């Protein structure tokens, strides 16, 4: 009887773990991102603790993989202050800028493809935009509105 109960609890445990994996859109062995759940952040402040933008395990991992630890830290600093999250042309647009505690004066965009699973980051300093993952000076294929915002978004 004891072992039956134990087996049942283990089975429930495995089911719960499985649901956790599904909810992040991850399939073991297939690192394809599914960001569609993040559209719930539309018009919300992306670094509110309860929304856990950077604590989202999949987004956190993907950003660290894209940027490396140093630039990831730089990104989190650039999100010291934020504006409300936008949804433009199928992309979730997160915009942040350094607060007064930082000695740098920089902004950053995180562009999350809700339909294509893509992830891009732009660091903006004195109207110079550095897109990742792209060589310096290049612009990604994104809606005009997003590129326009990046070009004209100056630090506050």
């Amino acid at each position, binding site marked *: 009887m004891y072992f039956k109960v134990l087996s049942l609890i283990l089975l429930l445990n495995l089911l719960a773990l499985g649901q956790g994996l599904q909810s992040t859109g991850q399939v073991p062995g297939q690192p394809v991102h599914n960001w569609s759940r993040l559209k719930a952040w539309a*018009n919300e402040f992306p670094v509110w603790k309860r929304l856990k933008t950077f604590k989202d395990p999949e987004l956190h991992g993907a950003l660290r993989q894209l940027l490396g630890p140093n630039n990831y830290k730089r990104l989190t600093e650039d999100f010291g202050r934020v504006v409300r999250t936008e949804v433009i042309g199928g992309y979730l647009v997160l915009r942040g800028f350094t607060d007064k505690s930082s000695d740098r004066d920089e902004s950053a965009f995180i562009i999350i493809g809700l339909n294509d699973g893509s992830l891009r980051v732009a660091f903006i300093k004195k109207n110079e935009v550095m897109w990742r993952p792209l060589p310096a000076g290049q612009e990604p294929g994104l809606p005009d509105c997003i590129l326009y915002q990046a070009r004209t978004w100056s630090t506050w």
Partner: protein
Amino acid sequence: MHVKIAIVIVLLSASALGQRPHHRSRVAQPSYPLAHLKTWANEYPVSAKRNIFKDAALRRALLRLLGEDDYQQLVNDFRHSTPVEIIDGYFVMHSVPDISNPNDEIAFVVFWMYDDTVLVAFKSQYGVDWLPVPEYGEPTVPECVSRMVQQLGPWSPPGSSDPD
């Protein structure tokens, strides 16, 4: 010993269930009449499954602004449309003109998420007709939205807003 094992398993169960925080997190309940429409972000306004014009608050706001005839025209324009966008706190949706008719009208519905005043623009080859008619020609909307209205739909001369 068995009790210890059982406690460990129960703890593991609890932590596994706790791996879905974003499913449990809830956004703030809307306190503005149209704020709930943000759930339409990146969704088509009219599809086989859903129709945004069935939303009572939006329908009421649009009917108040347009009247029955223009409201029906707007709904008709939205036979084809692109997914809803949220730009700088503004809800933005627009229709897509019929490809076979380059002079077909395009309609825009724009509102700030924290207001119940809806702006509608009908753009034709004769110009852009904003409703309600703003005092100085164009309403205050984000630059991206202004550019979108200028660039999409049939070409019309700049600054040719319908004076009527």
